């Protein structure tokens, strides 16, 4: 499996395949609510947004050990679609509609696959934070 990014959603013009991100990926709820406590002890909560928007999630993926060319592909994707809605298929067979919310993006060269390899055999790490909601499975 891999992570597939398609953009711009819904009129897809570009599809890019990336390897699975490293472990310690993050999935967190982005819905917000306000809580109030009445004088009689009753607790009230007010949800921000409709039900769909309480299901927004933040996903943080670190693409580790990308080859140089794959990192260039990811950078080109980010340059073009940093503000676009993106359809993402992940390794858990989930389909998400997301935006990229971390800006700026950092790509860091971490090392080389083996001593003596060519310069182009370096591996690169890029972290991307998405914000969006799950629309289904495949």
């Amino acid at each position, binding site marked *: 499996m891999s992570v597939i990014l398609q*953009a*711009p959603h819904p*009129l897809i*013009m*570009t599809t890019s395949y990336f390897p699975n991100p490293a472990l310690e990926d993050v999935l967190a709820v*982005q*819905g*917000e609510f306000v809580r109030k406590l009445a004088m009689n002890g009753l607790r009230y909560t007010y949800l*921000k*947004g*409709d039900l769909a*928007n*309480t299901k*927004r999630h933040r996903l943080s993926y670190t693409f580790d050990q990308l080859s*140089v*060319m794959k990192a*260039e*592909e990811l*950078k*080109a*994707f*980010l*340059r*073009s*679609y*940093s*503000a*676009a809605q993106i359809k993402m298929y992940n390794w858990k067979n989930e389909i998400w509609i997301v*935006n*990229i*919310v971390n*800006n*700026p*993006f*950092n*790509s*860091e*060269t*971490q*090392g*080389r696959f083996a001593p003596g390899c*060519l*310069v*182009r055999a*370096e591996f690169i790490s890029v972290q991307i934070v998405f*914000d*969006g909601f799950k629309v289904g499975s495949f």
Partner: protein
Amino acid sequence: MGFFDFPTPSISPPFVGARTNVVLTYPFFSPTTTLTLPNPEFGDVHNIDMTQINRRTRNNDLIVYRDPIWPRLEKLTLRWAYLTGTQGNDLLGFYFASFGKVVGFKDWFDRQWQGLIINPSADFTQPIDRNCGAVTAILEFEGELL
């Protein structure tokens, strides 16, 4: 933003070569000063900063907007841990010569950049554990890949 405002990435792969050194040139056009340094240490960072707006509505919708003409800044942060004293002095001299001016930078992938050195007042240090005169230097370069 309309769907067709997004510039589609090129379908041809970018040029990525290989070099054993990097080259700084100044001025960018008709350079008179050229400085060749070894490739920097691992841990170099390529930072892409897109000017765009992220807003959340009161309904918790996320609105992300970017106008194609808004600037995109790309910054390279490079670090050398073992420059010789001469190379360190040459780099310092290059900082003086090109202060605030556009320079050229040929990276270790043999790609040509055009831009500015944005940390000309960076520290050059001789670490205490290196008694052979080695110098540590950090270069922050903001520019565009040609």
